[in-house]
């Protein structure tokens, strides 16, 4: 399942690092963080999407404490 979220990231480098951190998570098929679009695209396994999303948000906050997401 693929879903897009509106996010708030303050710096381009953090966006890139958040993207890498989320891509490395278990259960994530594809992830893209757009600094310009302020969007997150998450493609993860259907049956555990919510768990993966939670892990992704946690990973993002770890990289950038100011990371915000509109769920």
């Amino acid at each position: 399942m693929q879903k897009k979220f509106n996010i708030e990231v303050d710096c381009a480098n953090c966006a890139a690092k958040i993207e890498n951190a989320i891509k490395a998570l278990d259960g994530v098929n594809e992830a893209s963080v757009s600094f310009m679009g302020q969007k997150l695209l998450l493609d993860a396994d259907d049956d555990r999407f919510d768990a993966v999303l939670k892990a992704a948000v946690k990973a993002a906050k770890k990289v950038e404490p100011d990371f915000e997401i509109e769920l």
Partner: protein
Amino acid sequence: MTKKQKKTLRRILIAAALSVCAALLTLRYNFGWYLALAVWLVPYLTIGYDVLRKALLGIKNGEVFDENFLMAVATVGAMALGEYGEGVAVMLFYQIGELFQSYAVGKSRRSITELMDIRPDTANLVGPDGALTTVDPEAVKVGDVIAVRPGEKVPLDGVVTSGASTLNTAALTGESKPRSVQPGDEILSGCVNGEGLLQVRVAKPYGESTVAKILELVENSSLKKAKVENFITRFARWYTPAVCLAALVLAVLPPLAGLAGLLPAGWPAGWDVWVLRALTFLVISCPCALVISIPLTFFGGIGGASRSGILVKGGNYLEALANTGVAVFDKTGTLTRGVFEVVDAAPADGVTERELGAAAALAESYSSHPIAKSLWAAYGAPQALDRARAADAQEEAGHGVCARVDGAEVLVGNARLLEDRGIAFVPAEGAGTVVYVARDGRFLGSIRIGDSVKPGAAAAIAALKGQGVRTVMLTGDAESAAAPVAAALGVDEVHAGLLPADKVAQVERLLAGKPAKSNLTFAGDGINDAPVLMRADVGVAMGALGSDAAIEAADVVLMDDDPAKLGLAIRIARKCMRIVYENIVFALGVKALFLLLGAVGVANMWWAVFADVGVMVLAVLNATRMLRPMR
């Protein structure tokens, strides 16, 4: 400016004022080191507390090498060495750079949505009693009736129920072509209503309307990243640690060499000199300029293109378009209009074209054949010509019609029809369907009906060739119909008589034959050629306004059907890539230079911070050039 930005600006101003105070105080009074440090710590913490906090959090979370860490180490190091002014200045300029970056990004994001300027703010809902209420377009349901007043944007897709007007599609297509609408016609959101009041029955909720789809497409385009964007991110990942390591070596190695007596004569041996140089290194090591300016350039390119009615679905496609080596076109509907029209007429000696045309149009006046329609379009509808002049029309199956016009027997049909009657005629040359006309056994002339070439198509092909792109035309039509069109357009290569599967095979062959670094674009109507669009490096759908299927299938969507837009798209893509490479070379060049100058002690921390922030500002300004629309 957003609230956050205003807060940062206020902090910068306060910290700058405090720094001036600190500088004056330390100049006026001869403080001990602890008092001087205390005085300087006030502006330092005012401007840098969040950076220090994030650096600590980063270390705690195992995310060590980020710019907060670099800035924290560089400035804390400077303060520890007693370079208080430098420490505060670096932090101050870093924050100014960050603020500028965030402002520039916000501004370009806004200007892109403004450029698009298609998002409707309100809809006028018509109540059961006819009264209008102004509502949010998202609140309107399918089946509701809305009123669109003159000059207003159509907020939702629907069908006109009453009123007539002309719509301007410029905001969607980049081209201001008025389109007239009447009750029963479909209208698309994003168009601007002309002079008439319209009532529209809403056909789609806002989220599925044309405007919402286009805006979503543009906003999501930044999620599909170009190779060069990914390269920069990977580069940033090793660049920062590498510079940190180099800084460490720079801080430790020369003083150790000095202790061992191995340092060349004339080199300073003091620890403080080398540590300060190493800290200068750290200030330069931030890859911000690259990491911000490159996505910004792509975003600007995609935004600028969408204003011209070219929707690019991702930076990766912009990158691919820039390297277009072969442009493949479908013929019908892409290079030609896709409708049958009278192309030309060849009246026999002593016959005028009007006489010939009127005879043919009247003889066909009871027909429902597409050829009849194109004759009427060129020479007058039966109503206008007075249908009563024609009588006794008979279809001659497969050959044409025979009718009495003004009492004379008129034959309209193919060559066989005249041959069968033993009427001598002049065979016509050229593509398309030829209709021969005879009256009372005498040949009146021939009329050629075909799919005419779009007015700008030849110029568009010539422009592509001028850009070094090889042009190929594919068509399902017969060779005899395709060759003259190809010749008129000047395409390099043409393949006719192709079934849909053959088109895929041709594209495969062209893909295999082209140089590895150049890309193949395929432009079609986006509906019948989905497999080819998928196979091509870049699939371009033309005339896609209002066709969800075409928008879905293609990588690049041309909202109107002007083939010249492909050339424009390639020009935009090439400008975008040029700016991207300019920024890469410029930013890395300046950084390398300052790393060198910093290592040998020519550039101090002031230079370093100016180089860092300055490069970022210039790279961002260069990137925003992409926002200007191109013609």
